[in-house]
């Protein structure tokens, strides 16, 4: 069942179980043939097809760096997409990432169907997958589960978007593979492959954005050393000033970021290891106009509908602000076993330090002394055996252990100190034939947790509270290919997560929303049963993917308003408490990309989600509004010096969110909006250097709008028109990246 793919012709087939394959009607030309199978290094051969029978033999060897999941790296081929996963998976490959470089990670992901973003101003953006975010999403960076501070909507993932060579989003529960928290979905960020055996190569990217005078620079360099070693270094830096709405400067919304990463790899025969280290550092300004004292202040700000002060543009970042540092060191190793299976072990250490600075401080300088700081350290180890294919069956078995501790700094605290240890064991098997794939798995996770909240949450001495949580995750999935160009995938997945520390022990006012939030120490596990079905079609003229899902959650944890407001010396605050209810999320997402006439292509994508409580049918708050995006792309004829040049225009239309609980929010959902984006891109080859460039104008007509999931929507519009320029210059051989047209 090796995949045989002819990427240039958009054709492919699978071998039978003896490894034989057959393709007819090939052009009498030079053809690139790729052979792929999970767990094996793909092999590419270029052959000249002659009249009559042609034979091409290939022997695949085990991958140098372990096995990938049931996904292989090149995505342009029909077979790969059609049989990608029993789950609904979306991928941003290197080329698509290039077109979005410089955006926040959340902003990049929001271009995928089913994914939206929860923003706190221009600098903070969190991915929302099918209506779920934060502790209901797992983020995997370079193979290691990201352990950051995800306590609030204003805590964005601590990852350098430039470091990604490929991003994959799994929509829906994936508890078996990713453990606790993979209820809403998974974001996997994969660095570029190490250049084993290659000479020195690399690239430089430069991005500039007009709206906030944001400049970003990224550079990467790597090479193979001898037969067995390879390394890569990558660094990026960015600086942005205040963003602008069509009418106002969003005061203190600038940010800056400096990131470095390095990877060293060794392989020989069936063994190898990879050592990866990265540092992420950012300072984010928070819009000063959203810093309010009490509920009365909030109501006056909402009524005014615009900032009380006219801010001037600046690059300076003052308090309120966040300073975040995230360091990761991971080591993974794999080796072949005498049985023909592979053993993989991986360990990762992460340190996440977050300091948040309040607008004013009595005991010190607001810009120097944080209102609170948190230091989260996590260590994880993971061992798995990837089975060699036996007949039609392949899979993996493994165990992981993660331990973490979180400590507060000297002043203030958002969440109490805690430490936790999670142990898990799983088995995941696939049965693969050319028409049908079945996939099933089980996982068990156990978490021990000790936190040190104040005795009655609000006051008293710190007391230890120890809790344990455990449950089973499971998956059953199928891919069926009734016709060569069509596949139907369906998946039932069960996942769970323990309540978050903030949900258990929070106590205090949330600045910006003037909500008084109280934790609930009695919360138990939150469970999800997700069913989804995906139809995929890939042919020369048309690519289509449409998914429908239903995610039933037992004990969904969310903030619910209390009857009595909380009266304090600072004024009155509406009171909210974490509760657990049964809820159901349902939705549709998908995209279509079609060749219209000649060089004109059209594409469209949509995301629709509904969430409500099962018993009362009350709508859930903060569900993304319905959205559709449609556009046209005109590809120019390739020239010797210009490749893949294209212009495109897109319309993005977001409806008003009409499904929300009455009497919970402080302002009605904002009106729907329609934005127009245009852009052009291409690769200009100068000498032997292919320079990729793009010019985009987002929100061409400078429309003033507020998204329902913008946390600043009470105070100010979202940013207006933004002109961006991107240039990507590779160097070294092997970077002759011909931009083949791809669907997405």
């Amino acid at each position, binding site marked *: 069942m090796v995949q045989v793919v002819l990427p240039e012709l958009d054709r492919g087939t699978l071998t039978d179980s003896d490894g034989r394959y057959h393709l007819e009607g090939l052009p009498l030309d030079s053809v690139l043939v790729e052979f792929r199978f999970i767990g094996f290094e793909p092999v590419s051969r270029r052959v000249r097809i002659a009249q009559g029978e042609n034979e091409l033999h290939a022997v695949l060897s085990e991958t140098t760096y372990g096995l990938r999941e049931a996904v292989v790296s090149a995505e342009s081929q029909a077979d790969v997409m059609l049989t990608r996963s029993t789950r609904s998976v979306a991928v941003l490959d290197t080329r698509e990432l290039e077109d979005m470089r410089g955006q926040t990670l959340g902003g990049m992901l929001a271009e995928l169907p089913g994914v939206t973003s929860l923003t706190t101003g221009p600098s903070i953006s969190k991915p929302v997958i099918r209506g779920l975010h934060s502790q209901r999403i797992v983020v995997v960076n370079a193979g290691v589960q990201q352990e950051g501070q995800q306590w609030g909507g204003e805590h964005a993932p601590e990852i350098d978007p430039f470091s990604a060579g490929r991003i994959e989003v799994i929509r829906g529960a994936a508890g078996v593979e990713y453990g606790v928290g993979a209820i809403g979905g998974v974001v996997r960020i994969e660095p570029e492959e190490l250049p084993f055996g290659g000479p020195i190569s690399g690239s430089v990217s430069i991005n500039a954005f007009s709206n906030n005078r944001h400049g970003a620079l990224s550079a990467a360099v790597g090479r193979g050393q001898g037969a067995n070693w390879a390394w890569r270094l990558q660094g990026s830096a960015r600086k942005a000033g205040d963003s602008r709405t069509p009418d106002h400067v969003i005061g203190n919304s600038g940010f800056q970021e400096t990131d470095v990463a390095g990877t060293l790899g060794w392989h020989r025969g069936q063994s190898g290891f990879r050592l990866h280290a990265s540092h992420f550092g950012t300072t984010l300004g928070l819009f000063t106009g959203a810093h*309010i004292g009490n509920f009365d202040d909030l109501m006056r700000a909402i009524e005014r509908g615009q900032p009380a002060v006219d*801010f001037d543009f600046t690059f300076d970042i003052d308090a309120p602000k966040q300073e975040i540092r995230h360091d990761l060191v991971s080591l993974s190793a794999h080796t072949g076993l005498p049985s023909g299976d592979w053993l993989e072990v991986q360990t990762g250490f992460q340190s996440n330090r977050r300091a948040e600075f309040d607008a004013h401080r009595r005991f010190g300088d607001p810009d120097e002394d944080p209102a609170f700081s948190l230091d989260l350290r996590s260590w994880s180890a993971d061992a798995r055996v990837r089975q060699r294919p036996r007949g039609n069956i392949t899979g993996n078995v493994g165990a992981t252990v993660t331990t973490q501790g*979180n400590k507060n700094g000297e002043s203030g605290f958002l969440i109490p100190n805690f430490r936790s240890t999670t142990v898990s064991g799983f088995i995941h098997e696939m049965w693969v034939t050319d028409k049908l794939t079945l996939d099933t798995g089980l996982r068990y996770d156990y978490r021990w947790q000790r936190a040190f909240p104040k005795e009655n949450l609000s*006051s008293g001495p710190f007391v230890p509270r120890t809790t344990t949580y455990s449950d089973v995750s499971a998956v059953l999935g199928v891919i069926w290919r009734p016709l060569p160009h069509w596949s139907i995938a369906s998946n039932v997945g069960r996942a769970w997560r323990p309540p978050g520390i903030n949900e258990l022990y929070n106590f205090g006012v949330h600045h910006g929303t003037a909500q008084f939030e109280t934790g609930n120490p009695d919360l138990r596990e939150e469970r999800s049963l997700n069913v989804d079905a995906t139809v995929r079609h890939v042919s020369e003229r048309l690519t289509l993917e449409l998914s429908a899902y239903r995610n039933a959650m037992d004990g969904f944890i969310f903030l619910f308003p209390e009857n009595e407001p909380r009266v304090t010396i600072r004024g009155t605050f509406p009171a909210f408490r974490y509760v657990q209810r049964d809820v159901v999320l349902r939705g549709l997402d998908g995209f279509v990309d079609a060749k219209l006439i000649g060089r004109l292509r059209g594409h469209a994508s949509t995301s629709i989600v509904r969430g409500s409580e099962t018993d009362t049918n009350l709508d859930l708050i903060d569900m993304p509004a319905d959205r559709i995006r449609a556009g046209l792309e005109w590809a120019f004829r390739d020239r010797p010096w210009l490749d893949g040049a294209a212009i495109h225009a897109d319309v993005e239309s977001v409806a008003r969110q009409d499904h929300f609980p009455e009497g919970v929010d402080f302002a009605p959902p904002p009106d729907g909006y329609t934005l127009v984006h245009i852009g052009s891109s291409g690769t200009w080859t100068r000498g032997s250097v292919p320079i990729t460039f793009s010019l985009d104008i987002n929100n061409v007509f400078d429309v003033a709008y507020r998204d329902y999931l913008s946390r600043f929507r009470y105070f100010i519009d979202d940013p207006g028109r933004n002109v961006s320029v991107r240039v990507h210059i590779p160097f070294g051989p092997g970077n002759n990246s011909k931009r083949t047209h791809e669907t997405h």
Partner: protein
Amino acid sequence: MKHIDTLKFVLPLLFIALLAGCDSTDPDPEGVGEEELITRLVVTMTANGQSVSYEANDPDGDGTGLQIDPMTLQSGTIYTGSIAVFDDVNGEDVGAEIAEEDDEHQFFFVPGGGAAARLSVVATDQDENGLPVGLTFQLTVADGGSGTASLQVILSHFDDAPKDGVNRSDETDIDVTFPVTIQ
């Protein structure tokens, strides 16, 4: 065997990482979780040589149990008032800090209830720009016999919004309403 070599390499690193991961997170008894609070507001009213203090007291900051003393005022009297503010959790005199940064603060006094029209308050102190602060003030209770009213005391902090002496800011540090009985 190649994989034995690899394991030899990996195991010590796993061990080191394990040590690094097992860090204690017990809170320090001192210094952790120190928050800036305002727990007590004291309004002192003086007339005819007699002083009475009224407190709004929230001993654990934002916790439960805000106690507000009712005020009893005499009809047809002019009071001299002053305000003191404390953080009893951390033992701080917040009033002194407000006095130091008086150009960034202002107290507003909002009468309410049935006899609201009979109460009027004027700040008697000024910051360096000549704008009122309200740490000291004069309260006039107009004639008219007994009645009930309320007095809302608001402390606005001016960080970005300029202080103009008239308008409140969106950053309220104190907002307390005292019930008032006029005798």
